[in-house]
């Protein structure tokens, strides 16, 4: 993780290309992706996730590979790759630590967390710590406003953060200790492992973690407390 492809091994047509075995493996995964869609072109986004799972970012060789596979020009592929913020243009750290700084999270304390992490890690936006573990990112609203302020680690939720909790989180990550999202799998997987899931290859961790966080259930709890409910469907008998 962290290094861009270098050197040349046998079976490669170019110093930065994939070797035959890798190419074959990628091609098989790519074929599985393409099979999900009526038209191959739709495979591009998952394919770019897949290439991030391989290289830790969307590398030039990945772009050339995708272009060839889908019959596009490299310009067309980079047009897509550079449109979306999740596609990284340089090797990503093992963990993307994203601090939500859109208005609500920022005001609830996201700005403070951001300031703290910038100082603690000594890096800025889209920069990676020297040990290659953490890439720090400003992220936009991540659909968790009821848990503000929110930090995402490899796109797992770390809700209701404080500067201190965020610092502890990054320290644990850098120390190689497993960290547990507030709503997510039991541990945070690596950037490459995550990218593979986003490419549509499940990692079998769906059953890990809680159903929902407290904020998700708060309304339900109030309803229970008051004995409020929607009218019954009236189909219970019918179905039996």
């Amino acid at each position, binding site marked *: 993780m962290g290094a861009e492809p270098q050197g040349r091994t046998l079976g490669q047509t170019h110093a930065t290309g994939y070797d035959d075995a890798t190419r074959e493996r990628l091609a098989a995964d790519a074929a599985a992706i393409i099979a999900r869609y009526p038209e191959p072109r739709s495979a591009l986004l998952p394919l770019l996730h897949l290439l991030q799972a391989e290289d830790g970012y969307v590398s030039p060789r990945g772009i050339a590979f995708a*272009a060839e596979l889908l019959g596009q020009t*490299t310009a067309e592929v980079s047009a897509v790759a550079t449109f979306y913020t999740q596609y990284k243009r*340089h090797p990503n750290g093992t963990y993307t630590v994203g601090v939500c700084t859109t208005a609500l999270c920022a005001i609830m304390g996201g700005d403070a967390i951001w300031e703290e992490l910038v100082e603690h890690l000594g890096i800025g936006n889209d920069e990676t710590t020297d040990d290659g573990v953490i890439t720090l990112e400003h992220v936009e609203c991540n659909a968790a406003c009821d848990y503000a302020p929110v930090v995402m680690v490899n796109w797992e939720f770390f809700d209701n953060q404080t500067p201190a909790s965020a610092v502890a989180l990054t320290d644990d990550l850098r120390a190689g200790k497993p960290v547990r999202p507030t709503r997510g799998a039991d541990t945070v997987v690596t950037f490459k492992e995550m990218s593979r899931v986003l490419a549509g290859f499940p990692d079998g961790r769906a059953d890990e973690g809680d159903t929902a966080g407290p904020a998700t259930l708060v309304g339900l709890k109030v309803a229970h407390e008051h004995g409020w409910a929607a009218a019954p469907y009236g189909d219970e008998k019918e179905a039996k």
Partner: protein
Amino acid sequence: MTVTTPRSGAATPLVPAAPPATEPEPTATVTFSIDGIETTVPKGTLVIRAAEQLGIQIPRFCDHPLLAPAGACRQCLVEVWAPRGDQLAKFPKPQASCTLEATPGMVVKTQRTSPEADKAQHGIIEFLLINHPLDCPVCDKGGECPLQNQAMSNGRATSRFVDAKRTYAKPINISTQILLDRERCILCQRCTRFQDEIAGDQFIDLQKRGWQQQIGRFDTGILGIRGELPVGESSMDASGQPFASYFSGNTVQICPVGALTSAAYRFRSRPFDLVSTPSIAEHDSQGSAIRIDHRRGVVLRRLSDNDPAVNAEFVTDKDRFAFPWQAGKDRLTAPQVREDGVLHATSLTEAIDAAAAGLAAALAKGGAAVLPGGRLPLEDAYAYAKFARVALRTNDVDHRARPHSAEEAAFLAHHVAGRTLDVTFADLDVAPAVLFVGLEPEEEGGILFLRLRQGLRRTKGQVFTVAPFASRGVARLDGTLLSAAPGTEAEVLDGIAEGADGPLGAAAAGLAKPGAVVLVGERAATVPGALSAALRLATRTGARLAWVPRRAGERGAVEAGTLPGLLPGGRPVADTAARVDMAAAWGVESLPSEPGRDLTAILQAAADGQIAALVVGGLEVADLPDPELARRALDRAFVVSLEVLPSEVTQRADVVLPVAPPVEKPGTFVTWEGRPRPFPQVLVSTALTDARMLDALADALGTPLGLRSLAQVHDELDQLGGWDGARAEAPDEAAAEPPAVDETQAVLATWHLLLDAGRLQGGEPFLAGTAKRSAARLSAATAAALCVADDEHVTVSTDAGAVTLPVLVTDMPDRVVWVPTNAADCAVRETLRADAGDVVRLARADEASALDEKEVTA
């Protein structure tokens, strides 16, 4: 357009003008009003177009009539009302008139009558200018810039924007020819939409997003993508950059600001200093309408003109940029005569006299022959045809300065000559199926490719090609490959039959549809039996058959009669009546009746001393089927060379007569369709046309041609008309057995790429950089057998020589190797003295493999 004003009583001209295109009657119309003016337009008309027709100019940037509506720049906003019930209801928002179809009863108010539209447009201009550098004084577009004009007419006097503008490094090369100044770009996407929709060649696209969005190719440095790009499957141009499109120059022309400029024209001129003349491009048989801009006698740029019947508003980069040859520093200016083995400049009179003397002597010694070359306008070609028959009394004349065959001559006489406008671009627009034989439409007929692509996209027509592999061009036409190793094309054509399996059957079904077309290229001549098989196929399926040569002069030359078996207007030499007819028209007693020799036979005879003199027009020795034979012939015979630039022919000539390039003379090119494309003289010049020179030479020989002026030539052409007698027989040649190859050999496949080492592309290094990088294409199995991978090198050789090129593994028949015919680093005829269908040796290049090992161990 006609060649000339026909005189009363004249027969049909030799090459009749195309009838004007008829617009189909619209099936339904819509009546609505713009700025209070009621107008009726065909249903589906966009408001912005309807306004144009009324003379109301709505400002716009992203709109382009030949591109799909985008609605991206938002400059063309207008106020719109539409009937609802019996009242008019206002659209809550101003509407983009470039995407809005007129509907009955609609009321449109443009900036002229609506304060709302006017404010909206002012707002957009202000937004566009906040990030636009005000560098108009140093911008190529200054003076002809829609943004500049609209900022003047619709903009604010001063900017309210006081913050930091986005700045980018000044122009970046997106190819050696095309420069991009991102600061000036207003992101209208005309360039990328052109490349996508028209050229199908997205070498540039939008990159990044939002305020950082920019036009660009895949450039890791600019996009900030770390790491090196692998080569191999990604195509690159000669300059080593990702391949730039053959049509890229159009993006410069349609860019509404000065964001895209060409290296060739950058900082060269201001538009108001230029004199523009409409003309016709000289590089291919497409007859593209162009505009030539010159300043004080120097051509500074060429643009595409707008001719819906031919090239619409687009041209190839070759037609746009390859013009410096006409004004090359080495241009021949003075006539020269060889004395004591050395060429000396002399006067025209002396040179003509020397030429006449030499020719007269040769006529006494075995005769003289004429090789006009394939690039001449109709008028000049006609003069060569007449000169051969009247002044030299021979049918030894052949303009085909390329591989040719007797079968081809028969095909041209039978099927092509005299049939002008039989198949046209317009037919291709609606063709349900098109088959290419020996023709790469993108490489050998750029406009043909663009037109087909547009037509096929509309009609969902099919493309088939008989070729060793599906080129990128064919792939962009969604073409189906009918795979044929070189030499087997005739067999494959015969295999296209109803009920055949796979693509052959599909092709048969497609070609049976009304309107289907078979297009054969000039390369079909290199395959014995191919043209015969194409004729059979056309008869069998009912498809129409047309011949698409590469060079601008080929089609006109067939009509002009510069073939050994053909007199002007398709009159067969072998036909007595035709000869009598022509003799009468030319005012001579009779015409030579023995059939003439073709180019190869002429050169052979000259090399053997049987023909004593050659009159040679503009041709390159290296283009000929056997350059060595040509050199021997030129060395031995008395040679009169009519040329624009020094060449191997002028080097060997006894008399050199400098003639005018197209820009310095009027004339007529004839497209592959047989459409006359007259062009005027652009620059003042003292240079003479070939016709005028031949006329003087004939006078000196005592056999006047009467072709002193263009008017005289046109009069004759109009008087002559075409031949209505019997046509020559169709050729019926059998296919040849494909050669056997062993494991050290391969069959050669080759064709010309659009941009290559051609003589007329000289002097334009920026253009040359955008040529495709040369490569040897092999099948995976052939590559594996040689132990080579993409980008490693192979050597293709014959006893005559060898070329070494990087490999491009391609889906194609085994033991076939394709190389470009005439690239800077791969001159097939010159180096290998071989052509398509010949057997060559093929091996892994030693040097390349040595290099490789070093890399691997390093």
